[in-house]
């Protein structure tokens, strides 16, 4: 499987996504330059973490106008997978690939730590290797990670099973203390209508090697790989 990782000016999670795909999983991976128009026949596009365009104006607001985003949107419309992590999630929302927005953490501080999140949808192409209710340990590192959307959108996301992950306590229970950034319904990750675009604030690509901590992000990549094999 070929992963294409978009490099915007200011991306810094591109390197981690590349190594997760290429080094940890042994799959093919390439960087896609924001000024290009060629996805190089990638199967999966990754919009990585970082501070594209310095988060100036608003996180993700400028990156959505990058030349490569035309092709990324077309790729998504074809039903092909787009994995949008952290700043990539913000870009995907700005580009209309996902509903809602990500605003300042409720603490108004940057949060970098390992959190626990519960798998809410274990049937998507990104998550079917997990089981429903499984609690994952994943790093987060963001200042603007609080997911918000109007009530109608949130209701639809919930009813259609498009909430992929939710912040929770290590035992899986939900609480305000564990909703690290104050997201609506403790939402940590969502899917688009067709289930082929996943946006999430935690970093699965930073959790693929036991040396660095619990490798709980591997399930996500294995889900993608198994999906194509099937």
């Amino acid at each position, binding site marked *: 499987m070929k992963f294409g990782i978009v490099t915007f000016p200011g991306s810094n999670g591109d390197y981690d996504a590349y190594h997760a795909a290429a080094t940890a999983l042994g799959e093919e991976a390439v960087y896609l330059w924001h000024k290009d128009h060629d996805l190089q026949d990638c199967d999966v596009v990754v919009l990585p973490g970082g501070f594209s365009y310095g988060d100036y104006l608003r996180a993700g607001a400028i990156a959505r106008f990058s030349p490569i985003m035309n092709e990324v949107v077309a790729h998504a419309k074809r039903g092909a997978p787009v994995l949008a992590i952290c700043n990539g999630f913000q870009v995907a929302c700005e580009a209309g690939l996902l509903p809602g927005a990500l605003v300042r953490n409720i603490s*108004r501080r940057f949060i970098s730590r390992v959190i626990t999140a519960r798998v809410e949808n274990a049937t998507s192409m990104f998550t079917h290797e997990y089981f429903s209710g499984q609690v994952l340990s994943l790093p987060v590192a963001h200042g603007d990670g609080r997911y918000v959307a109007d009530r109608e959108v949130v209701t639809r996301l919930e009813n259609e099973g498009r909430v992929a992950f939710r912040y929770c306590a290590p035992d899986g229970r939900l609480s305000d203390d564990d909703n690290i950034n104050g997201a609506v319904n403790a939402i940590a990750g969502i899917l688009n209508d067709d289930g082929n675009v996943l946006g999430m604030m935690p970093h699965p690509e930073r959790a693929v090697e036991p040396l*660095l901590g619990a490798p709980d992000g591997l399930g996500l990549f294995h889900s993608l790989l198994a999906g194509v094999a099937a």
Partner: protein
Amino acid sequence: MSVVLPRPGDPAVTLQLAKEHGLTSDEFDRVCRMLGRTPTFTELGIVSALWNEHCSYKHSRNTLRTLPTEGAAVIQGPGENAGVVSIGDGIAIAFKIESHNHPSAIEPYQGAATGVGGILRDVFTMGARPIAMLNSLRFGSLESARNRYLFAGVVKGIGDYGNCVGVPTVAGEIVFDAAYDGNPLVNAMCVGMLREDELILAKAEGIGNPILCVGARTGRDGIHGASFASEDLSEASEAKRPRVQVGDPFTEKLLLEASLELIRSGHIVAIQDMGAAGLTSSSAEMAARGDVGVTIDTSLVPVRETGMTPYEILLSESQERMLVVAHQGHEQAVREILFKWDLTAEVIGKVIAEPVYRVTEGDRIVAEFPGSQLVTECPRYDVPAREGAETVRLRGMNVDAIAELPEEADPAWTILRLLAGPTIASKQWAFQQYDSTVRTNTVVGPGGDAAVLRIRGTDRAIAVKTDCNGRYVALDPRVGGRIAVAEAARNVACTGARPLAITNCLNFGNPTRPEVFFQFTEAVAGIGEACRALDTPVTGGNVSFYNESPTGSVHPTPVIGMVGVIDSLEYITPSTFRNAGDAIVLLGDCTNELGASEYLASVHGVTAGSPPQCDLDRERSVINTLLQAIQSGVVASAHDCSDGGLAIALAECLMSNPARMTGAEIDLTAWDSLPLRAVLFGEAQGRVVVSSGECDRLLDIAAKHSVPARIIGTVTSQSDGLAIRVGQRVINIGTDQLAEAYHTAIPRIMDASPQSAAIDETEGVMV
């Protein structure tokens, strides 16, 4: 030499104006002699920028020369933008620490942020990819609103800058002591990785080669920043806020990528950060290193403001800029790489055969100095050094006579009190604002004895750490200097790393005061002794004098940044206990040394007595014991015993990692002949708390190295808590109680603080 006439519109240069630029009359005479005439206004600006303390090291150079700088691993020692050491397999580590104290005292957010930016550039300008940031911070007591504001602002500034650039901030020490009231210390260290053949130096070479200014445009910000850093802080300092530079981490990230691409492209000869004193120092230093002449035309420098004079352009400290010497004919290739990253690159001068440093504004020569005399003829001073009488008095105080507080009848009270003291308490409140996992190399992040980063593509890792106990240095600078190195070495050894080399950031008061100069020379002597004994040469660093405020000098604080190498990933060792049933062994010995301790400072408000002795042979043996034991696979965890003594080290082993808490049953009756508080809270050096499933082998290894080692207890489960048998009593404290004191102290202070909340409102955007 050319004829240089005053530029129309510039002020006439007089001794008075020179003094306003911080020059002494002797220094002004020296400039006039060098030129054979009175300098122009532009020339005066250049000299004041290069001859201030920050850039010239005029009070420190002679002393620094005594430090050991050579060793088998050293590829590049002091004198470049950063030191470089080999870790084997053709891989090298570039690293350097630098201060940004004065700017941070006035404007904590930007001051700290630009400190991070500057040290990052120092490392990637060597051709190294930055892989980790550390920082060493000192503030006054958090009881003061001003100090809470400074602490919150500095932490946010460090976080916002490093997070955006995408370099993990992996370790830091933060100390709170009234000695730093009004003059916080903000030292940032950057560690980068390169292949040995990728190393590039900041040495101008090749007559006719073009000099380019690349990166951000030049504005009027930060003019005279370096000279501001070379005077005491005072009430008037607030008015110098405009001298604090403004950072843009997004541009830094682009500059980082562009610079590395440029260096690897082969189109350039040399590259140097435009840091303190901007274009002036970068161009003069590059010329001096290459022993060539240069000419710079200020009218060609890309500016972001109109009407800037040569004086302003030369002295601007606008951030995120680099000076590059390219191969002749490769100018366009250089430009294309910078344009790819949306940055500017303009030719602003060239390397010339004529031995002069010349600045023009179009065709008009506005400054010219013979050869590299600007750099080489800088004055050097040796000041009389004399120990202050007050220091002698405090050191001589009999601290054993200090009466215990009534509450101390229960040592559990004292332990909890120390754990909740901001210097010992968990700093996660700050660390959680730093992205510590980006680039996916961080094996041990903030909060361990040292941070550990794996080196991709190898079976190796490096351990990095900063250390210094200013109280020790204040009371006995030579011993304090030794301990700073020894403790940093012990810390990296606890993770399984062989200490390799250091960088240092020497924060002192006003060096023209004999007692300050005494502290400086003695501390440097102590550092030198320890570096020789532990075979960890000095590869560079930074001196920050004039850390004074209306309330007096700071504690002399020579911060040591240590790099060690771990030869196999298998050797990486955690600091906290892992398995119930493991034996707990103390390497080293308890002594009756309570002087200069955190216990006296925190519980009794006393900074007095002699700091603990530092036997460097013993330190070396302890490190060798630890490394051999770790490599033999008999160490489950290892934690350095430092601030707060053995009781605090044990408590930290139980609960500093909230994800894996344990208990311990401890017996310290072997030291019943010593006073109880010396056993629990004394800070005897050369000690490490080790847990092991095979303690017989551990004891054998210690015996071979003649290191005292004793089984002092057993790891139990979290619900058993900490039980310490001393004398006729047993001290019992729940692990949860210890954790509560340790983990909640700083959040309790900061989350309730309006000064902290005000900083949170500062948006991440820096421009």
